[in-house]
């Protein structure tokens, strides 16, 4: 038994070492994608290009404009004519345009409501929403300042006695709210998913295509030996890739690993077992490597989208939220981020691990049972 299994493993590793494509696939994507996600995937919106047309041209309106100019959220571009706005937005030169009409300062002085028009390119609704939020923040800050000064002019000292609510921000686990801290641990789950699922599916389908699967089945090898021989290498590769990406995240992006390595490893083991099950399952329903690729794609895309990696699950429709309970990546993302940033342990994360373990058992059982049939 051990001789046969050992030989399966040796063969599998020799394949990985000798095959250029396999070698590349194992180690290049994790590193490249970690860097890409670390730098590019960010929910923060900085340096919003904004055009401002000031038809009031008063002291007050100039103060307001300079507030926008001082903010690190905006790149201000002053326009003389509002007719330039549509063209600038069409060409993506700016995504917002503010228009201050004449009479702005006069209305404020009279104690009336002054209007600041904001045109926003909402074709990217997320950026639009965040940009509007920033504009609102700057405008309210300016209005508050204006009111205080107005009060002080009428009755010096009154403003100081006005009641106020100040929001004291205490961002736990990520004090600077660095989005890399959020994304890098999440990327570990995504990459391990892609690598383990596709490699496992391809490895088995490839043997089917070149005829070695049938050849192996006429030897006295047992089904379990074959499947172990096919999965153990990818299990180890999954662990290795996790270590590699974690290392890159910690050393390069300085994402702190607050929690215990043991908890992280336990979650990763459960997760990789799920992915091996999925990969084997795909191999039992695919006759060729092309079919395996398309089938993997149909699994990978929704698995990543409905995992909470990017957009939060809580903002999805209720039905989809329920479906995410079937998605192993959903649990692994929680484990990764919680262990990395919150430093929690088994006492908090056991439900996630139990869910992944359950999915792993079901997927592996179904795949192993299907495997026999798929030989015929």
């Amino acid at each position, binding site marked *: 038994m051990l001789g046969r299994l050992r030989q399966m493993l040796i063969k599998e590793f020799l394949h990985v070492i000798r095959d250029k494509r396999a070698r590349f696939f194992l180690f290049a994507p994790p590193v490249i994608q970690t860097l890409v996600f670390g730098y590019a995937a960010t929910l923060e919106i900085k340096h919003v290009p904004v055009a401002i047309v000031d038809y009031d041209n008063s002291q007050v309106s100039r103060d307001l404009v300079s507030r926008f100019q001082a903010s690190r959220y905006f790149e201000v571009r002053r326009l003389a004519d509002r007719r330039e706005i549509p063209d600038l937005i069409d060409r993506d030169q700016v995504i917002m345009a503010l228009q201050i009409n004449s009479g702005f300062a006069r209305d404020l002085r009279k104690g009336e409501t002054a209007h600041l028009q904001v045109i926003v390119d909402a074709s990217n609704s997320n950026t639009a929403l965040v940009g509007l939020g920033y504009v609102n923040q700057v405008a309210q800050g300016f209005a508050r300042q204006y009111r205080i000064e107005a009060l002080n002019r009428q009755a010096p000292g009154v403003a100081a006695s006005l009641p106020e609510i100040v929001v004291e921000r205490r961002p736990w686990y990520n004090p600077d709210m660095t989005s890399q801290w959020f994304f890098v641990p999440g990327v570990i789950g995504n990459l391990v998913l892609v690598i383990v699922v596709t490699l496992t599916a391809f490895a088995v389908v490839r043997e089917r295509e070149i005829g*070695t699967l049938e050849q192996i089945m006429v030897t006295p090898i047992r089904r379990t030996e074959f499947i172990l021989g096919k999965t153990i290498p990818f299990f180890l590769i999954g662990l290795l890739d996790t270590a590699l990406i974690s290392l890159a995240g910690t050393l390069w992006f300085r994402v702190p690993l607050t929690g215990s390595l043991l908890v992280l490893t336990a979650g990763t083991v459960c997760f990789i077992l799920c992915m091996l099950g999925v990969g084997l399952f795909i191999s039992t329903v695919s006759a060729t490597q092309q079919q395996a690729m398309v089938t993997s794609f149909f699994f990978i895309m929704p698995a990543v989208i409905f995992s909470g990696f990017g957009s939060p699950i809580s903002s999805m429709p209720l039905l989809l939220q329920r479906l995410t309970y079937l998605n192993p990546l959903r649990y692994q993302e929680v484990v990764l981020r919680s262990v990395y940033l919150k430093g929690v342990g088994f006492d908090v994360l056991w439900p996630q691990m139990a869910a992944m373990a359950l999915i792993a058992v079901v997927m592996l059982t179904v795949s192993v049972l299907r495997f026999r049939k798929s030989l015929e």
Partner: protein
Amino acid sequence: MSGSENAIELNGLTKSFPGVRAVDGLSFAVRRGEIFGLVGPDGAGKTTTMRMLAGVLAPDEGSATVAGFDLARDAERAKHRISYMPQRFGLYEELTVDENIRFYADLFGVPRREREERSAELLKAAGMAEFRSRLAGKLSGGMKQKLGLVCALIHTPEVMLLDEPTNGVDPVSRRDFWRILYTLLDQGVTILTTTAYLDEAERCHRVALLHEGRMLFCDTPANLKASLPGAVLSIVCADPRPVRDLLAGTEGISTVMIVGDGLHLVVRDPQRMIPELRSRIAAAGLSCDAIEQVAPSIEDLFVEAVQGDWGDNGHERDRGGER
């Protein structure tokens, strides 16, 4: 192996795939030390039969015994005694010749010393001794198939199942291949082979003709040839197609088949037919060289069995039982 003199026995073996009965109640037996040929057109059920005997495909009905093991109960134990070699033996192209041999040897649990000795011997017989460290992917097609044979023989099987093993293999490699097979026969190995090359079928001790999952005939090549009703005439001509069209369906000719240098006809009365053929071909404005009676080949038998008059009462001649 048990005391039985048969190395392989099939009893009513049947396998259906959606829409087709690939193997239909097949029964025959292969004696120990015999080389037995299965011949038939594509889709006759040869490969399906082989895969069932190799234990990778479960039959729907019927039973089979290989090397004394009933496949329904003991397929796993039988696998140690069987070697199965399909049309393309599954090799790992990124592993070397030695690594491929080692892989299959270990799957069969061959001890190291035995593996070394046997692979040296087999590689030498295959004329591949100097390619041990070459990647299998860099070998020629014939070499690959010979390496497959080496891998298939590394565990010293008692029964070999060969499925069109020399299909598309160059003549030199084919010769090496057959030399190895004859050596095995000398050692008492039983060989069941399917083949598309009818000259190879004539090298077998006995041959079974398979058509649409059923066996038409089973006998020695010599007996089969002797039992052909009528005789085979060879017409040598440069352009056989119009001649075939002219003669097809003629009274007294049961089959007309194009061969390398002309046509083969199966006729009832060759002596009367030769002058008649000459005049008919000349009358039609066509030409031919020699017309003469030749010894029937397996190919003639086969075409006659499938297309000609003989096949209609063929089951009376089915001597394939041997049970």
